[in-house]
């Protein structure tokens, strides 16, 4: 693939605390992620993969270094500008699903559209389309408590893709699921990557799940240890 990278990290560091309690989580990351790639981020805990994902998700800013998203510098944006960037270009899937309780699947999926100011009919149409994509159209009026773990994660994926984001960030999306559900979720992510052209960034510590990716990035001690092609690549 010779596409321009959608994400570029250059010399990114992240330092938490100061003085005696100072901890350097990232020690200078250089990384390019191509548009349309499916990247699995692996590494032991404390290796910096979560910190990197937070920076890539525009939830956090690097202490130093450059972060370019679609050629634009993100490290100079303020809090609200990064929020707007997330709203426009990014979708999030979390290990713990993070759906709003006592709220129907459709209302959960519609949430990002509310912040985009879409009208009621548009929200309904887009929300139902996203639920259809993850195969849960019939479950639209169920609350998270009435859905299985796999179904909840699929609702979360529907919520992440309802805005047709450029990048989907998934933080251990299968961490709370059994292997059968996990494979279903990975197939869904692969499908979104291949057929909807969404760039997927996924943190995982399971090699089986990483195997679905085109590219696997290994982290160790706050640095990128190596980058390898996945089975899908």
């Amino acid at each position: 693939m010779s596409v321009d990278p959608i994400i570029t990290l250059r010399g990114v560091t992240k330092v938490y605390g100061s003085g005696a309690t100072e901890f350097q989580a990232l020690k200078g990351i250089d990384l390019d992620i191509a548009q349309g790639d499916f990247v699995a981020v692996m590494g032991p805990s404390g290796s910096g993969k979560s910190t990197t994902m937070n920076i890539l998700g525009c939830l956090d800013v690097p202490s130093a270094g450059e972060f370019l998203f679609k050629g634009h510098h993100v490290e100079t944006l303020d809090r609200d500008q990064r929020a707007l960037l997330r709203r426009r270009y990014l979708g999030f899937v979390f290990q713990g699903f993070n759906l709003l309780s006592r709220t129907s699947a459709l209302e959960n999926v519609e949430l990002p559209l509310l912040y985009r100011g879409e009208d009621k009919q548009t929200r309904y149409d887009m929300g139902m389309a996203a639920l259809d994509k993850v195969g849960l159209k019939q479950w639209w009026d169920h609350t998270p408590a009435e859905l299985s773990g796999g179904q909840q994660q699929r609702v979360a994926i529907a919520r992440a893709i309802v805005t047709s984001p450029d990048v989907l960030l998934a933080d251990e999306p299968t961490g709370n699921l059994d292997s059968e559900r996990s494979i279903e979720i990975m197939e869904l992510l692969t499908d979104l990557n291949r057929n909807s052209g969404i760039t997927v960034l996924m943190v995982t510590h399971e090699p089986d799940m990483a195997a679905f990716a085109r590219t696997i990035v290994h982290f160790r001690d706050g640095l990128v240890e190596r980058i390898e092609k996945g089975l899908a690549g």
Partner: protein
Amino acid sequence: MLGTTIILAFRAINRHKLRSFLTTLGIIIGVAAVVTMVTLGNGATAAVREQISSLGANVLQLRPGQGFGRGGGGPRPPDFKPADLTAIENQLTGVRAVAPMAQSSGTAIYEGNNWSTTVYGTTAAYFEVQSWKVTSGRLFMPEEEEAGRPVCIIGNTVRTNLFQGGDPIGQRMRIKGVSCQVIGALATRGQGGFGDQDDVVVMPIKFVQRRFTGNRDISQIMIAVDDAYDTSTVQQSLEELMRERRQIKAGGEDNFNVFDTKQISDTLTGTTTILTQIVGAVAAISLLVGGIGIMNIMLVSVTERTREIGIRLAIGAVAGEVLMQFLVEAIVLSCLGGVIGLLIALVASWAIAPLMQVPFIFDLKVNLIAFVFSAVIGVVFGYFPARRAAALNPIDALRHE
């Protein structure tokens, strides 16, 4: 966007119905109390005004002493003499009618029913001054007044308690152990600023003086001013006349007072207004407490929904939107409380007004102020929790258990 925020607020409130209700209870009670009190207070003021105006406009009351009551220490100022009455009748211009009054109290008895009441000794002029009519029977004849005959005209309360449904006219009843004949029954006046105005027996003043008070003193003189004359001018001449008659030197203090009914009306409505304001202030404090209740619950809500806030921030909500969400939620809560409070106040004052015998007066201004006030409470006490929510870091918020 605001519309959506309001919908979101309603959804959040709907998710915790009981808690939301309990939270708004302070506001509900506060608003209901304020509006009920003010509405009833306004009704009471209106009732007093009406009562006073029913006493007849342009009426002056001449009493011994200063102000209401007989005053504090010192010797009791003397009552008026029959010569004072004659002087007023003959020397004062602009007077339509003059009624002397001697007062006593005692028990009236008729066929085993007895009733404690007030006895007024006066003349037929009293009914003219008071613009008070008999519904049946007649007023005193001049010869009955002159001779002080044992005849009486009874108020409706006395009539009801002694005669029940029966016709009292021509019946003989006993008052303070003396037999007298009922010659008239008065129209109902209702509760006034001075208590039940219908609880009264009116008799010729000479009879009351001879049999009850034992002297010829007049405790009060009521004067109706002719419409063509200015009440305050007549009041001034009356005061000069009385100072002269009671031999008060220049610079000395009056040992009598003249009340204009309008002045009494102002005093009484002033008292009602002050009472309304005090009760209103107490109720306003309960509104404040209600506001603190809202702040408390909103803080709990922010902590409890930290993850939700994290999700919203991750999805792309800007800080201002999260702030608005929680602020609007607090405002919706307090406004809901305000509306419920107003409804309760409406029903309560509508139900209580007849019991207090005051008219029910719906005051739009008071209702609007109370509602706006409850909304303001939402803003004031919702802002701090909302700002706290908006300031959350999305990463920490998402990790929050």
